[in-house]
Protein backbone atom coordinates (compact mmCIF):
# COMPACT_ATOMS: atom_id res chain seq x y z
CA UNK A 1 0.00 0.00 0.00
CA UNK A 2 1.33 3.35 -0.88
CA UNK A 3 0.09 6.32 1.07
CA UNK A 4 0.97 9.56 -0.59
CA UNK A 5 2.27 11.29 2.54
CA UNK A 6 3.17 14.65 0.95
CA UNK A 7 -0.37 14.79 -0.35
CA UNK A 8 -1.73 14.69 3.17
CA UNK A 9 -0.18 18.10 3.77
CA UNK A 10 -1.67 19.46 0.53
CA UNK A 11 -5.01 17.99 1.45
CA UNK A 12 -4.74 19.48 4.93
CA UNK A 13 -4.27 22.99 3.62
CA UNK A 14 -7.33 22.63 1.43
CA UNK A 15 -9.62 20.84 3.87
CA UNK A 16 -8.86 23.12 6.82
CA UNK A 17 -10.46 25.99 4.86
CA UNK A 18 -13.81 24.43 5.75
CA UNK A 19 -13.11 24.50 9.47
CA UNK A 20 -15.26 27.63 10.02
CA UNK A 21 -18.28 25.86 8.58
CA UNK A 22 -17.74 22.90 10.88
CA UNK A 23 -17.38 25.21 13.86
CA UNK A 24 -20.57 27.06 12.97
CA UNK A 25 -22.37 23.74 12.63
CA UNK A 26 -21.10 22.78 16.07
CA UNK A 27 -21.31 25.93 18.14
CA UNK A 28 -24.57 27.51 16.93
CA UNK A 29 -26.71 24.41 17.61
CA UNK A 30 -25.09 24.06 21.04
CA UNK A 31 -25.80 27.67 21.97
CA UNK A 32 -29.40 27.53 20.79
CA UNK A 33 -29.72 24.06 22.26
CA UNK A 34 -28.49 25.34 25.61
CA UNK A 35 -31.32 27.88 25.80
CA UNK A 36 -33.83 25.26 24.73
CA UNK A 37 -32.25 22.84 27.18
CA UNK A 38 -32.62 25.08 30.22
CA UNK A 39 -36.26 25.81 29.47
CA UNK A 40 -37.11 22.19 28.77
CA UNK A 41 -35.19 20.97 31.84
CA UNK A 42 -37.04 23.39 34.11
CA UNK A 43 -40.39 22.47 32.56
CA UNK A 44 -39.66 18.80 33.21
CA UNK A 45 -38.51 19.41 36.78
CA UNK A 46 -41.40 21.67 37.78
CA UNK A 47 -43.84 19.56 35.79
CA UNK A 48 -45.52 22.67 34.36
CA UNK A 49 -49.07 21.79 33.33
CA UNK A 50 -49.78 21.07 29.66
CA UNK A 51 -46.20 21.61 28.47
CA UNK A 52 -44.68 18.93 30.70
CA UNK A 53 -45.76 16.00 28.54
CA UNK A 54 -44.74 17.82 25.38
CA UNK A 55 -41.30 18.43 26.86
CA UNK A 56 -40.94 14.76 27.78
CA UNK A 57 -42.00 13.74 24.27
CA UNK A 58 -39.60 16.17 22.66
CA UNK A 59 -36.62 14.91 24.64
CA UNK A 60 -37.57 11.27 24.20
CA UNK A 61 -38.07 11.59 20.43
CA UNK A 62 -34.96 13.59 19.63
CA UNK A 63 -32.75 11.38 21.73
CA UNK A 64 -34.39 8.25 20.38
CA UNK A 65 -33.94 8.86 16.68
CA UNK A 66 -30.81 9.27 14.56
CA UNK A 67 -29.74 12.83 13.82
CA UNK A 68 -29.60 12.14 10.10
CA UNK A 69 -33.37 11.68 10.29
CA UNK A 70 -33.81 15.03 12.00
CA UNK A 71 -31.78 16.70 9.29
CA UNK A 72 -33.67 14.99 6.49
CA UNK A 73 -37.12 15.62 7.91
CA UNK A 74 -36.36 19.30 8.44
CA UNK A 75 -34.59 19.54 5.08
CA UNK A 76 -37.62 18.21 3.21
CA UNK A 77 -40.32 19.32 5.57
CA UNK A 78 -39.64 22.99 6.22
CA UNK A 79 -39.61 23.99 2.53
CA UNK A 80 -43.01 22.31 2.11
CA UNK A 81 -44.29 24.15 5.15
CA UNK A 82 -42.84 27.45 4.02
CA UNK A 83 -44.34 27.09 0.55
CA UNK A 84 -47.79 26.23 1.93
CA UNK A 85 -47.76 29.15 4.37
CA UNK A 86 -46.39 31.45 1.68
CA UNK A 87 -49.21 30.44 -0.62
CA UNK A 88 -51.94 30.87 1.97
CA UNK A 89 -50.87 34.28 3.17
CA UNK A 90 -49.55 35.54 -0.13
CA UNK A 91 -46.08 36.13 1.22
CA UNK A 92 -43.48 35.87 -1.46
CA UNK A 93 -41.10 33.49 0.28
CA UNK A 94 -39.56 30.83 -1.90
CA UNK A 95 -38.29 27.87 0.03
CA UNK A 96 -35.64 27.17 -2.60
CA UNK A 97 -33.97 30.45 -1.71
CA UNK A 98 -33.36 29.43 1.90
CA UNK A 99 -29.76 28.37 2.37
CA UNK A 100 -29.44 24.68 3.24
CA UNK A 101 -27.30 25.40 6.24
CA UNK A 102 -30.28 26.93 8.02
CA UNK A 103 -32.12 23.63 7.80
CA UNK A 104 -29.12 21.79 9.14
CA UNK A 105 -28.68 24.28 11.97
CA UNK A 106 -32.36 24.02 12.89
CA UNK A 107 -32.28 20.25 13.01
CA UNK A 108 -29.04 20.16 14.99
CA UNK A 109 -30.32 22.81 17.41
CA UNK A 110 -33.44 20.81 18.15
CA UNK A 111 -31.35 17.69 18.74
CA UNK A 112 -28.86 19.60 20.89
CA UNK A 113 -31.72 21.01 22.95
CA UNK A 114 -32.92 17.51 23.79
CA UNK A 115 -29.49 16.18 24.77
CA UNK A 116 -28.52 19.28 26.72
CA UNK A 117 -31.81 19.38 28.59
CA UNK A 118 -31.08 15.90 29.92
CA UNK A 119 -27.64 16.97 31.12
CA UNK A 120 -28.97 20.13 32.73
CA UNK A 121 -31.84 18.25 34.31
CA UNK A 122 -29.65 15.59 35.88
CA UNK A 123 -27.22 18.30 36.98
CA UNK A 124 -30.01 20.16 38.76
CA UNK A 125 -31.23 16.99 40.44
CA UNK A 126 -27.76 16.23 41.69
CA UNK A 127 -27.51 19.49 43.63
CA UNK A 128 -28.44 18.59 47.20
CA UNK A 129 -31.91 19.67 48.31
CA UNK A 130 -30.31 21.30 51.34
CA UNK A 131 -29.09 24.09 49.08
CA UNK A 132 -32.64 24.70 47.86
CA UNK A 133 -34.05 24.65 51.40
CA UNK A 134 -31.44 27.11 52.60
CA UNK A 135 -32.32 29.41 49.71
CA UNK A 136 -36.01 29.27 50.63
CA UNK A 137 -35.22 29.79 54.29
CA UNK A 138 -33.56 33.14 53.59
CA UNK A 139 -36.66 34.21 51.72
CA UNK A 140 -35.86 33.58 48.06
CA UNK A 141 -38.59 32.79 45.57
CA UNK A 142 -38.50 29.58 43.55
CA UNK A 143 -37.01 31.37 40.55
CA UNK A 144 -34.38 33.19 42.59
CA UNK A 145 -33.37 29.97 44.30
CA UNK A 146 -33.12 28.13 41.00
CA UNK A 147 -31.12 30.74 39.09
CA UNK A 148 -28.87 32.00 41.88
CA UNK A 149 -28.17 28.85 43.87
CA UNK A 150 -29.07 25.62 42.11
CA UNK A 151 -28.35 26.30 38.45
CA UNK A 152 -24.82 27.70 38.94
CA UNK A 153 -23.81 24.60 40.87
CA UNK A 154 -25.61 22.28 38.46
CA UNK A 155 -23.83 23.76 35.45
CA UNK A 156 -20.44 23.71 37.15
CA UNK A 157 -20.82 20.04 37.96
CA UNK A 158 -21.97 19.24 34.41
CA UNK A 159 -18.87 20.48 32.60
CA UNK A 160 -17.64 16.96 31.73
CA UNK A 161 -21.03 16.08 30.27
CA UNK A 162 -21.13 19.33 28.33
CA UNK A 163 -17.72 18.52 26.92
CA UNK A 164 -18.88 15.12 25.74
CA UNK A 165 -21.84 16.76 24.06
CA UNK A 166 -19.61 19.37 22.42
CA UNK A 167 -17.34 16.69 21.03
CA UNK A 168 -20.39 14.70 19.97
CA UNK A 169 -21.81 17.60 17.98
CA UNK A 170 -18.41 18.42 16.54
CA UNK A 171 -18.46 14.93 15.07
CA UNK A 172 -22.15 15.14 14.15
CA UNK A 173 -21.44 18.16 11.96
CA UNK A 174 -19.85 15.72 9.53
CA UNK A 175 -23.32 14.41 8.70
CA UNK A 176 -24.05 17.72 7.00
CA UNK A 177 -21.80 16.42 4.22
CA UNK A 178 -24.65 14.11 3.23
CA UNK A 179 -26.77 17.14 2.33
CA UNK A 180 -23.92 18.73 0.41
CA UNK A 181 -22.75 21.19 3.02
CA UNK A 182 -19.08 21.96 2.60
CA UNK A 183 -17.75 21.37 6.06
CA UNK A 184 -14.60 19.37 6.85
CA UNK A 185 -15.90 16.01 5.66
CA UNK A 186 -17.49 17.51 2.57
CA UNK A 187 -14.25 19.26 1.74
CA UNK A 188 -12.35 16.02 2.26
CA UNK A 189 -14.68 14.26 -0.14
CA UNK A 190 -14.12 16.90 -2.79
CA UNK A 191 -10.35 16.71 -2.39
CA UNK A 192 -10.62 12.92 -2.50
CA UNK A 193 -12.70 12.73 -5.66
CA UNK A 194 -10.79 15.44 -7.48
CA UNK A 195 -7.43 13.80 -6.89
CA UNK A 196 -8.58 10.21 -6.57
CA UNK A 197 -6.77 10.01 -3.26
CA UNK A 198 -9.57 8.89 -0.99
CA UNK A 199 -7.58 7.33 1.80
CA UNK A 200 -5.20 10.25 2.16
CA UNK A 201 -7.99 12.81 2.16
CA UNK A 202 -10.01 11.07 4.83
CA UNK A 203 -6.95 10.35 6.94
CA UNK A 204 -6.31 14.09 6.86
CA UNK A 205 -9.88 14.86 7.86
CA UNK A 206 -9.62 12.30 10.64
CA UNK A 207 -6.47 13.92 11.97
CA UNK A 208 -8.12 17.34 11.95
CA UNK A 209 -11.15 16.09 13.90
CA UNK A 210 -8.88 14.21 16.30
CA UNK A 211 -6.80 17.30 16.92
CA UNK A 212 -9.88 19.44 17.49
CA UNK A 213 -11.27 16.87 19.94
CA UNK A 214 -8.06 16.82 21.94
CA UNK A 215 -7.97 20.61 22.09
CA UNK A 216 -11.59 20.78 23.27
CA UNK A 217 -10.97 18.17 25.95
CA UNK A 218 -7.90 20.06 27.14
CA UNK A 219 -9.80 23.32 27.46
CA UNK A 220 -12.63 21.56 29.26
CA UNK A 221 -10.22 20.03 31.75
CA UNK A 222 -8.91 23.46 32.70
CA UNK A 223 -12.41 24.94 32.72
CA UNK A 224 -13.71 22.25 35.03
CA UNK A 225 -10.89 22.80 37.46
CA UNK A 226 -11.61 26.51 37.67
CA UNK A 227 -15.35 26.31 37.82
CA UNK A 228 -15.51 23.70 40.59
CA UNK A 229 -12.69 25.16 42.65
CA UNK A 230 -15.20 26.18 45.32
CA UNK A 231 -15.77 22.59 46.29
CA UNK A 232 -12.15 21.56 46.51
CA UNK A 233 -11.66 22.55 50.15
CA UNK A 234 -8.13 22.48 51.51
CA UNK A 235 -7.25 25.24 53.95
CA UNK A 236 -8.94 25.50 57.29
Amino acid at each position, binding site marked *: *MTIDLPFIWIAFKEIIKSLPTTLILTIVPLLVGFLIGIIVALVRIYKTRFVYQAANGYVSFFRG*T*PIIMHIMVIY*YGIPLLVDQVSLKFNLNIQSSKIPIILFVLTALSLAAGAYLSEIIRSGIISVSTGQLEAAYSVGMTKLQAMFRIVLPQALAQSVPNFTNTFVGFLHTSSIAFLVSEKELTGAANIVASTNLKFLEAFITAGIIYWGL*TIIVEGISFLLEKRVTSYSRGGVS
Partner: protein
Amino acid sequence: MGKVFDPLLIIEFLPTLLHYLGVTLEILAASIFLGLIIGVAAAIPRLFKIPFLNQLVILYVSFIRGTPILIQLFLVFYGLPAILMIFDIDISKLEAIYFVIITYAISNGASFSEIFRGAIRAVDKGQTEAAYSVGMTSTQNFFRIVLPQALRIAFPNMANSVIGSLKDTSLAFSIGVMDMVGRGDTLISATAHALEVYISLSIIYYAVVLLFEKIFNKLEKHFNRYQSADISVAA
Protein backbone atom coordinates in the same frame (compact mmCIF):
# COMPACT_ATOMS: atom_id res chain seq x y z
CA MET B 1 -48.64 13.29 -9.54
CA GLY B 2 -50.70 13.27 -6.42
CA LYS B 3 -50.41 15.45 -3.33
CA VAL B 4 -47.20 17.14 -2.38
CA PHE B 5 -47.35 15.65 1.08
CA ASP B 6 -49.46 12.61 1.79
CA PRO B 7 -49.60 11.47 5.41
CA LEU B 8 -51.09 8.16 4.35
CA LEU B 9 -47.88 7.34 2.55
CA ILE B 10 -46.06 7.37 5.89
CA ILE B 11 -48.11 4.38 6.93
CA GLU B 12 -47.89 2.77 3.50
CA PHE B 13 -44.13 2.90 3.54
CA LEU B 14 -43.82 1.21 6.93
CA PRO B 15 -44.05 -2.44 5.78
CA THR B 16 -41.56 -1.89 2.97
CA LEU B 17 -39.08 -0.36 5.34
CA LEU B 18 -39.73 -2.79 8.17
CA HIS B 19 -38.76 -5.54 5.78
CA TYR B 20 -35.22 -4.24 5.98
CA LEU B 21 -35.18 -3.64 9.74
CA GLY B 22 -33.68 -7.08 9.97
CA VAL B 23 -30.61 -5.94 8.07
CA THR B 24 -30.18 -2.99 10.40
CA LEU B 25 -30.50 -5.23 13.43
CA GLU B 26 -28.09 -7.75 11.94
CA ILE B 27 -25.51 -5.04 11.51
CA LEU B 28 -26.13 -3.94 15.09
CA ALA B 29 -25.93 -7.42 16.56
CA ALA B 30 -22.79 -8.38 14.68
CA SER B 31 -21.00 -5.16 15.51
CA ILE B 32 -22.00 -5.37 19.19
CA PHE B 33 -20.83 -8.97 19.42
CA LEU B 34 -17.49 -8.28 17.77
CA GLY B 35 -17.25 -5.02 19.68
CA LEU B 36 -17.54 -6.88 22.98
CA ILE B 37 -14.62 -9.12 22.06
CA ILE B 38 -12.53 -6.16 20.97
CA GLY B 39 -13.59 -4.24 24.06
CA VAL B 40 -12.47 -6.95 26.46
CA ALA B 41 -9.24 -7.45 24.55
CA ALA B 42 -8.54 -3.73 24.67
CA ALA B 43 -9.44 -3.34 28.33
CA ILE B 44 -6.94 -5.95 29.47
CA PRO B 45 -3.73 -4.08 28.52
CA ARG B 46 -5.16 -0.98 30.18
CA LEU B 47 -6.17 -2.68 33.40
CA PHE B 48 -2.96 -4.66 33.79
CA LYS B 49 -0.78 -1.87 32.41
CA ILE B 50 0.94 -4.09 29.84
CA PRO B 51 3.65 -1.86 28.30
CA PHE B 52 3.37 -0.88 24.67
CA LEU B 53 -0.08 -2.52 24.30
CA ASN B 54 -1.33 -0.08 26.91
CA GLN B 55 -0.18 2.90 24.86
CA LEU B 56 -1.52 1.33 21.69
CA VAL B 57 -4.96 0.97 23.19
CA ILE B 58 -4.86 4.53 24.53
CA LEU B 59 -4.12 5.72 21.00
CA TYR B 60 -6.81 3.52 19.49
CA VAL B 61 -9.49 4.69 21.92
CA SER B 62 -8.44 8.30 21.56
CA PHE B 63 -8.65 8.15 17.77
CA ILE B 64 -12.04 6.44 17.72
CA ARG B 65 -13.48 8.89 20.23
CA GLY B 66 -11.86 11.77 18.41
CA THR B 67 -13.30 11.18 14.94
CA PRO B 68 -16.80 11.12 13.48
CA ILE B 69 -18.27 7.72 12.68
CA LEU B 70 -18.68 8.84 9.07
CA ILE B 71 -14.93 9.39 8.74
CA GLN B 72 -14.32 5.99 10.33
CA LEU B 73 -16.65 4.43 7.77
CA PHE B 74 -14.73 5.97 4.89
CA LEU B 75 -11.36 5.09 6.41
CA VAL B 76 -12.29 1.43 6.74
CA PHE B 77 -13.99 1.40 3.35
CA TYR B 78 -10.94 2.79 1.55
CA GLY B 79 -8.25 1.74 3.95
CA LEU B 80 -8.96 -1.89 4.73
CA PRO B 81 -8.68 -3.09 1.11
CA ALA B 82 -5.44 -1.11 0.77
CA ILE B 83 -3.95 -2.66 3.92
CA LEU B 84 -4.99 -6.18 2.94
CA MET B 85 -3.51 -5.67 -0.52
CA ILE B 86 -0.12 -5.77 1.16
CA PHE B 87 -0.86 -9.34 2.14
CA ASP B 88 -2.20 -10.06 -1.33
CA ILE B 89 -5.75 -10.36 -0.05
CA ASP B 90 -8.22 -8.81 -2.42
CA ILE B 91 -11.45 -7.75 -0.78
CA SER B 92 -12.46 -5.17 -3.35
CA LYS B 93 -15.52 -7.24 -4.15
CA LEU B 94 -16.60 -7.57 -0.53
CA GLU B 95 -20.11 -6.36 0.11
CA ALA B 96 -20.44 -3.01 1.78
CA ILE B 97 -22.25 -4.51 4.76
CA TYR B 98 -19.07 -6.19 6.00
CA PHE B 99 -17.15 -2.94 5.94
CA VAL B 100 -19.94 -1.42 7.95
CA ILE B 101 -19.92 -4.20 10.54
CA ILE B 102 -16.16 -3.97 10.90
CA THR B 103 -16.27 -0.19 11.31
CA TYR B 104 -18.98 -0.29 13.96
CA ALA B 105 -17.25 -3.18 15.74
CA ILE B 106 -14.04 -1.19 15.96
CA SER B 107 -15.96 1.86 17.14
CA ASN B 108 -18.00 -0.02 19.72
CA GLY B 109 -14.88 -1.85 20.88
CA ALA B 110 -13.33 1.45 21.91
CA SER B 111 -16.41 2.58 23.85
CA PHE B 112 -16.83 -0.81 25.49
CA SER B 113 -13.21 -1.00 26.58
CA GLU B 114 -13.54 2.35 28.33
CA ILE B 115 -16.81 1.27 29.96
CA PHE B 116 -15.29 -2.02 31.17
CA ARG B 117 -12.22 -0.27 32.49
CA GLY B 118 -14.29 2.27 34.38
CA ALA B 119 -16.64 -0.33 35.78
CA ILE B 120 -13.87 -2.59 37.09
CA ARG B 121 -12.18 0.36 38.74
CA ALA B 122 -15.48 1.48 40.24
CA VAL B 123 -15.94 -1.69 42.24
CA ASP B 124 -15.24 -0.86 45.86
CA LYS B 125 -11.69 -1.86 46.89
CA GLY B 126 -13.14 -3.09 50.14
CA GLN B 127 -14.76 -5.93 48.25
CA THR B 128 -11.37 -7.20 47.07
CA GLU B 129 -9.89 -6.75 50.54
CA ALA B 130 -12.69 -8.81 51.99
CA ALA B 131 -12.16 -11.47 49.34
CA TYR B 132 -8.46 -11.77 50.15
CA SER B 133 -9.20 -11.82 53.85
CA VAL B 134 -11.36 -14.93 53.43
CA GLY B 135 -8.58 -16.57 51.49
CA MET B 136 -9.43 -16.13 47.81
CA THR B 137 -6.76 -15.90 45.15
CA SER B 138 -6.66 -12.88 42.92
CA THR B 139 -8.19 -14.86 40.06
CA GLN B 140 -11.06 -16.04 42.23
CA ASN B 141 -11.52 -12.52 43.47
CA PHE B 142 -11.67 -11.18 39.93
CA PHE B 143 -14.15 -13.67 38.55
CA ARG B 144 -16.34 -14.24 41.60
CA ILE B 145 -16.41 -10.84 43.29
CA VAL B 146 -15.20 -8.04 41.05
CA LEU B 147 -16.50 -9.04 37.64
CA PRO B 148 -20.15 -9.64 38.59
CA GLN B 149 -20.31 -6.27 40.31
CA ALA B 150 -18.50 -4.58 37.46
CA LEU B 151 -21.05 -5.95 35.01
CA ARG B 152 -23.84 -4.46 37.08
CA ILE B 153 -22.11 -1.08 37.18
CA ALA B 154 -21.31 -1.19 33.47
CA PHE B 155 -24.79 -2.13 32.38
CA PRO B 156 -26.45 1.30 32.03
CA ASN B 157 -23.49 2.62 30.05
CA MET B 158 -23.49 -0.46 27.85
CA ALA B 159 -27.21 -0.03 27.24
CA ASN B 160 -26.66 3.58 26.19
CA SER B 161 -23.81 2.48 23.94
CA VAL B 162 -25.98 -0.11 22.20
CA ILE B 163 -28.75 2.41 21.60
CA GLY B 164 -26.19 4.90 20.35
CA SER B 165 -24.81 2.29 17.99
CA LEU B 166 -28.29 1.58 16.68
CA LYS B 167 -28.66 5.24 15.79
CA ASP B 168 -25.21 5.24 14.20
CA THR B 169 -26.20 2.43 11.82
CA SER B 170 -28.42 4.97 10.09
CA LEU B 171 -25.27 6.26 8.39
CA ALA B 172 -24.34 2.94 6.82
CA PHE B 173 -26.26 3.79 3.65
CA SER B 174 -23.59 6.37 2.80
CA ILE B 175 -21.29 3.60 1.64
CA GLY B 176 -24.05 1.80 -0.17
CA VAL B 177 -25.47 -0.68 2.33
CA MET B 178 -29.00 -1.83 1.58
CA ASP B 179 -30.39 -1.54 5.08
CA MET B 180 -33.55 0.26 6.19
CA VAL B 181 -32.27 3.68 5.23
CA GLY B 182 -30.86 2.33 1.99
CA ARG B 183 -34.28 0.92 1.13
CA GLY B 184 -35.71 4.28 2.05
CA ASP B 185 -33.45 5.91 -0.49
CA THR B 186 -34.72 3.64 -3.26
CA LEU B 187 -38.27 4.44 -2.21
CA ILE B 188 -37.48 8.12 -2.55
CA SER B 189 -36.09 7.62 -6.03
CA ALA B 190 -39.23 5.73 -6.94
CA THR B 191 -41.86 8.01 -5.39
CA ALA B 192 -40.17 11.41 -4.82
CA HIS B 193 -41.85 11.50 -1.40
CA ALA B 194 -38.72 11.95 0.66
CA LEU B 195 -40.42 13.58 3.66
CA GLU B 196 -42.84 10.72 4.18
CA VAL B 197 -40.05 8.16 3.87
CA TYR B 198 -37.91 9.86 6.48
CA ILE B 199 -40.83 10.35 8.86
CA SER B 200 -41.64 6.68 8.43
CA LEU B 201 -38.04 5.72 9.14
CA SER B 202 -37.98 7.97 12.20
CA ILE B 203 -41.06 6.25 13.57
CA ILE B 204 -39.45 2.84 13.16
CA TYR B 205 -36.20 3.93 14.79
CA TYR B 206 -38.10 5.56 17.66
CA ALA B 207 -40.20 2.47 18.24
CA VAL B 208 -37.16 0.18 18.25
CA VAL B 209 -35.26 2.50 20.61
CA LEU B 210 -38.23 2.65 22.99
CA LEU B 211 -38.42 -1.13 22.93
CA PHE B 212 -34.71 -1.45 23.68
CA GLU B 213 -35.03 1.06 26.52
CA LYS B 214 -37.90 -0.91 28.06
CA ILE B 215 -35.95 -4.15 27.85
CA PHE B 216 -32.79 -2.57 29.26
CA ASN B 217 -34.76 -1.00 32.11
CA LYS B 218 -36.17 -4.38 33.08
CA LEU B 219 -32.73 -5.98 32.88
CA GLU B 220 -31.22 -3.20 34.97
CA LYS B 221 -33.86 -3.67 37.65
CA HIS B 222 -33.08 -7.37 37.66
CA PHE B 223 -29.35 -6.78 38.04
CA ASN B 224 -29.92 -4.35 40.88
CA ARG B 225 -32.30 -6.45 42.90
CA TYR B 226 -29.82 -6.88 45.75
CA GLN B 227 -29.04 -3.19 46.11
CA SER B 228 -30.41 -1.35 49.15
CA ALA B 229 -33.36 0.96 48.67
CA ASP B 230 -32.93 4.69 49.14
CA ILE B 231 -33.05 5.79 52.76
CA SER B 232 -35.86 8.29 53.06
CA VAL B 233 -35.59 11.28 55.39
CA ALA B 234 -37.42 10.77 58.69
CA ALA B 235 -39.72 13.41 60.19
